[in-house]
């Protein structure tokens, strides 16, 4: 069920932790890659990375949360599982609110960790699918003219043709023509499909 391109990236300053994680996860058949610091991971990171990130919150120099922020800024969509020690719960909650994937508190049960890794990997797979689909719609949108895009936005906003014509100061016929071309270019047949496609990318 694991997609072969997915890797679990472990970032932890404690050597024993990295080693034991590797031992555990490889036993489950995952591909594991370890980094001893956030900086080391940042250096190695690239956009094509697939899988998930198991990140220790407490680390000297750059902490796990800081790394999270940096990754966000870079537009990374890699799911992150924070590993926290005792007393770091509020911090982990904050991290989740910022869009982290999951967190797990040490000491953790290995099944628990594995379950979360599994979910993270699934999420990663979905995200990868969506990224693909969004890429197609975006391509279609780019083919619209300026006037067609304006008409489309007003259509999606639920305006009637007459209202659109008044707003853009064009004739009803022109609106209808633009509308037909938009539907054609976007590859949809109904208004509902158009709305769905536009919403998915915006």
């Amino acid at each position, binding site marked *: 069920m694991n997609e072969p391109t997915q890797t679990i990236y472990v970032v932890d*300053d*404690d050597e*024993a*932790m990295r*080693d*034991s*994680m590797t*031992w*555990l996860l*490889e*036993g*489950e058949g995952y591909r594991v890659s370890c980094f001893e610091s956030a900086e080391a991971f940042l250096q190695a990171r690239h956009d094509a990375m697939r899988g998930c990130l198991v990140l220790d919150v*407490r680390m*000297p*120099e750059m*902490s796990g949360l800081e790394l999270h922020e940096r990754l966000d800024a870079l537009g990374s969509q890699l799911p992150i599982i924070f*590993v926290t*020690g*005792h*007393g*770091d719960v509020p911090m982990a909650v904050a991290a989740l609110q910022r869009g982290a994937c999951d967190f797990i508190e*040490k*000491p*953790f*049960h*290995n099944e628990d960790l594995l379950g979360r890794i599994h979910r993270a990997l699934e999420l990663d797979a979905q995200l990868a699918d969506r990224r693909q689909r969004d890429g197609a719609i975006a391509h279609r949108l780019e083919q619209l003219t300026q006037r067609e895009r304006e008409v489309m936005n007003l259509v999606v906003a639920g305006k009637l043709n007459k209202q659109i014509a008044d707003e853009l100061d064009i004739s009803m016929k022109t609106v209808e023509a633009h509308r037909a071309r938009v539907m054609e270019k976007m590859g949809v047949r109904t208004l509902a499909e158009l709305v769905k496609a536009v919403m998915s990318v915006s």
Partner: protein
Amino acid sequence: MARLRQRAKNVGMLSRVPAPPPRQPWLWFAPYVAIGVFALAMLIVTALLQWRELDTARSALEGDMHWAERTIENRLHSHLDFLGELGREQEFKQLTYETYQVKASRYVRENPEIQAIIWVDTEGKVEWVAPNESTATFVGEQLAGERMAALQEALRIRRELVSADYRDTTQRPMHDIILPVQRGSADLGAFIALQSLEGLLRATLPAVFTARYSLTLVDAKEREVLSNTSVKPTDRQVSGSISIDLPSNQLGLNIVAYRGGGAWLPFLPVTLIIVLTLIATVTLIQLRRHASRRAETEEELRSAYAFRQAMSNSLITGMRAIDLEGRITFVNAAFCRMTGFEESELLGIKPPYPYWPPEEFDQLQHNIDTALAGRAPASGYEMRIMRKNGERFDVRLYFSPLIDAHGQQIGWMASMNDITEPKRVRVELERAHERFTTVIDGLDTAVHVTDVHSGEILFANRAFQNIFGFDCIGRDSAQVTAACRPHSEWLHHDPATLPAEALPCELFDGEIQHTLSGHWYHLHERAIRWVDGRTVRVQIAADITDRKRIEEVNQQQQKRLEQTSRLITMGEMASSLAHELNQPLSAIANYCAGCVKRMQSGNYKLDDLLAAMQKASDQAERAGKIIRRMRDMVKKGDPNRQPVALPELIDETRAFADIEAQRTGTQLIVDLPAELPRIVVDRIMIEQVLLNLVRNAIEAMSDVPVERRQLRLAAHVVDDRLLQVSVIDNGHGLDDDDIERIFAPFYTTKPEGMGIGLAICRSIIEFHQGRLWVEPRREGGTIFHFTVPIEENSGEDHE
């Protein structure tokens, strides 16, 4: 009245001291010189007069002598002529005995100095004697001796001759005038006139002459023959001698003038002059002595004057003399100074005086009236008078009668003291004493003073009396304070044997419980010199019962705080420790789970499993170490001070501190000198302090960029007793307020802090006789320093 004015003038003149007369010692010699010159002149004049007198006497003498010489010679020549007449008649045999008898007798009668005229033959036998009745010789008498020799000589030379003198039967000096008679060449005999020398003088010289002069006849051999006086004149100054030239006989007649009035007469003027001169000199000396005594007295008087004047001027007491009517006759300088009036403005003025303030007129008039009546009180008058400028001041005036040299009262002397200042001082003194009493009595500390020898309580303030009774002054301190008294052995010194130069000296400083009331007092006792010079003990006892109670409570609280702090520290540490423990525990769990999974799946290599299990076991050991460290930290017995090396201590502290440091990304630098002596401390306590300071430092740096989060631990040896450890951070630093209060319990700059960490740290360091303090760092941040004792013989133990 004129007399009084004169007196006033005299008194006024007292202010001018007469200048001493110029000294002219030569003046004193003038009278002596004058007396000397006068005496000398008188003596010279006298001598001149005497000399002239003598001269006159001498010339008179000479005249008289010449006259006498001529007279005597004439007489003798007349005798010789008569004898020559007789001889010629005899020669020519014209002379008969009867003729001879008549002629000769008549001649003898006319010339009484001739005793007789005799005719002797050539053999010296008396043949005729005239006059008959003469007793000088007898017919038939044979001449003998010198007379015979003279006769023979006369016969031989055939000339007249005067024999040497001889004594007749009545022992009167006589001499013979011999005239030899020859006829042809044959000698017939000789006529001899027996002449008495005495008669000669008497007959020839008048009585006046003999009375004036002392006459002496001397023979040719300078033998004295006859003198008309029995007393020989001693002064031969006025004398002369004449030689009566007689044939064959030199009869010298010496004539010496008599001194009229005695021999002393010429000396009388000289003596008188000398005596008078002496008297004058003695008088002069006496006069001079008197004068010099007078000068001395004057000098004494002058200095006495000057002294009195100086005294009067230097007096700060104003002196004023008034006569019996109240008129001012004298004021001294002080009086003028006090009143501001000139002396000339006051002298001669009758009451009311110008320095009387108008409002006091009646009182002052009454005073002066009673004073003039002699009823002035012995204590004087206290009154208010006025300066010239109108300023009023208080004086005290004493009256005493003024008696002159004759014992008569001529007025009243008043002495005036300005009592404004003494009055002010007295009031001030009273107030000061009142303040002192108020302050001393207002103290809640008990103060009392005890004589060290008698133990008598000399002074006690109200607080003391409140404790030991209000009748305690004068009683024996040992009895009064028996319930709360330092034992004599506790005193630093025995106060009774302290030498005076050792004062003041501390005797006791300590806390004592009152055995009856149970109150605690802090007693501070000193030996000092009391106001009258004796040695006393001053004891200050402060009631410290409340403080003592608070201290006890504080101590208990401190203990509790310490424990609480430790627990809180542990609590704060817990999350770090949990994280630390989580690492090995999670690792172990991972290894185990990995092994289980592989074994379940059957897809494993034994070596891999063994390696994983080994790693798990290592992690278990790591967890165990953490637990042990934690247990050490919590376990707290009595302080156990032992020599320990500081680096060791720091290492152990780091085991905890590093967790926190790693978490926050703080760089912990330990910067210790290579060789440090060992310190004697309770290891756990000092670790706790170090950990606390390190944790504070880390927290202080939470706001600074990670790269600046540097914490430095340094140490250096202060001296042979102390080692100083410093914890230096780069944090936000402390403001002045914080620095002052940071060690106070329950003061904190941290939002979650309890504010007891540093307070306890300080107690711990002070427990080690060290000091904990903080100072800001110039570059920003804070430095905490503390000192701990060094092992005493560390030099030997330390390699």
